[in-house]
């Protein structure tokens, strides 16, 4: 295999790795944030909010993974991931029960 082909291959496999990383790790983090946000917004009687958040988290996760794979530009994905995550964190920080901090 000549050098040029190897380079392209490496670039391509790195892109594949990067996208998978974004989907698995980024998706996990954002789904946790959104699920937590949801658990705060719902009535949390007897842990119901937390349970609902967890029940829904896997659906959110799946949607995020599919979204990551359907958008062409990784840069767009990251920008959106960053904006949504930041918004979640800000709202969560406002709502977080004091006793936990």
């Amino acid at each position, binding site marked *: 295999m000549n050098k040029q082909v190897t380079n392209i291959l490496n670039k391509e496999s790195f892109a594949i790795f990067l996208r998978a990383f974004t989907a698995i790790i980024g998706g996990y983090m954002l789904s946790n944030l959104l699920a*937590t946000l949801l658990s*705060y917004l719902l009535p949390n009687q*007897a842990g119901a909010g937390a349970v609902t958040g967890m029940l829904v988290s896997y659906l959110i996760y799946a949607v995020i993974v599919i979204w990551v*794979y*359907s958008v062409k530009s990784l840069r767009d994905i990251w920008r959106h991931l960053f904006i949504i995550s930041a918004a979640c964190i800000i709202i969560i920080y406002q709502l977080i029960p004091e006793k936990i901090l």
Partner: protein
Amino acid sequence: MSAAAEGNFRHSMKWLHTWSGLLVGTVLYFMFITGTAGYFNDEISRWMQPELPMVNGSISQKKLLNVAEKRLNEVASESSQWWVDFPIGRQLSLRINWSEKTKNSGGEEGEKWHEEVLNYNTGKPSIARETGGGDTLYYMHYALYYIPNVLAYWITSLCAMFMFIGLITGIVIHRQIFKDFFTFRPGKKQHSWRDMHNVLSVLPLPFHIMITYSGLLFLMFTTMQGVISASYGTGQQNKDRFYDDIYSQGVAHKGAAGITAKNITLSSVLLAVEQRKGENKLSYIGIENRGDINAHIELAAYDYDGLKASEIQIYNGVNGELQHTNKGDESSSAAMNFYNIMTVLHEGDFANYFLRWLYFISGLMGAGMIASGMILWANKRRERANKKGIVSKGLVLVERVNIGTIVGLPIAIAIYFWVNRLLPASFAGRADWEMNGLFISWALMLAYPFCVAHKYTITKIWRDQLIIAAALYGFLPVLNLLTTNTHLGNTLANGYWALAGFDLTMIVFSLCFSFAAYRLHYQQDVTKPATSSLQAIKVSRVKQVNRIIEAAEQ
């Protein structure tokens, strides 16, 4: 969405579907096969302990409880807890459990649990061989083996997530899911595998989605615990607070008061219950805080109302009054209700034998869906590689791992049963060695294609392993005949269906593997393109004839 964008979306979903399937296919296949075996865990365990007494039909529970109480008085007169499991439903033995107070060297108090299976007639404990049984097979589908539980939960959850994505993307990439469902093109290699994959995926699709999503939910308190921490804080203590919140505590489970009191016998409660509920209905009965003024007797009937298990009743252990009835629908919230329903559906405890077989077959179809997907991946690329004349390393790897996984794992499970019969009953650590046998033989089967690939074609290696599998499953009932009394001659004649069913199922498996091996015998080897001119002419002629026939049919 424009047509082009839609095409793009479908294309990227196809890519995601293919690669997520390939990446974790082996682990998912393992989870599906062992989990499916778990639907018959009690029957497998029973088969693996042939020394246990064979009993048919119902025996008076009054008599059984007398036997059990007598034995418990002998061996556990000081114990604070007694439990008696009746042989009813799929549970086939009379089991007693009791706790023993222990003190370790540091003076810390603990509890040690004892279990015995009793012979109904003699009242003596039956000594059966040590075995992992069906339960170990079942635990492995989420706890794996050889590695810490929590790590295993993360691995299996991640794979289940891949499966979930695979299902969703699989639906997306199907333009015509219903048309595909009724399409089967046997004899056309590539199409046959695709059709097989489609049928195995679409027909039990509700089952696949239910089992995958509920499987994720089972482990959500581990994998999504960030959500718990966000409301309750981190650490085990806070997590326990969460558990206390979501599981409503039974009010009647009072601790011991430390005041000794004379307790009524279990038999006297049974008598009272039988007068109301009818005879021989109980699944278990037990007493907590035995010998204390706060003693209570807990029991439940073997009965399912839809998905729900029968109510649990708790009686006062001193005067026999009914204290509490737990209807089982006292979930703390709608969310917990949903969670409970999903987990109950996953486990299928409520399923009678008809439903249980349906679960079993659906599970096997799930394994078949994964297996056919893995084969489809390899075959497609093999066809392309043969045309181009370049075979990638990845393709060779997948082709070989596929064999060691798809046939190798069933072989390893057969070895698990063989080791159970061949190791001496008194062999030390035999339960561990049954499992080691499983994993050693699986490793050998995974290695085998790599070792012989320079000599044999892929098709030949497939056939070899299929023949090994067919032989191992086919001779299992014979081995059972040679080493135990619980062979088909005995079990069929006396109607012990749980035991006979195991042997018969093994024969069916053997026939399936034999059929697959037989089919492969007449199949052209895929790894060798039809290069010889004579063969090429033959193939083109067959194609021509086919085309003529098709034209004539239209």
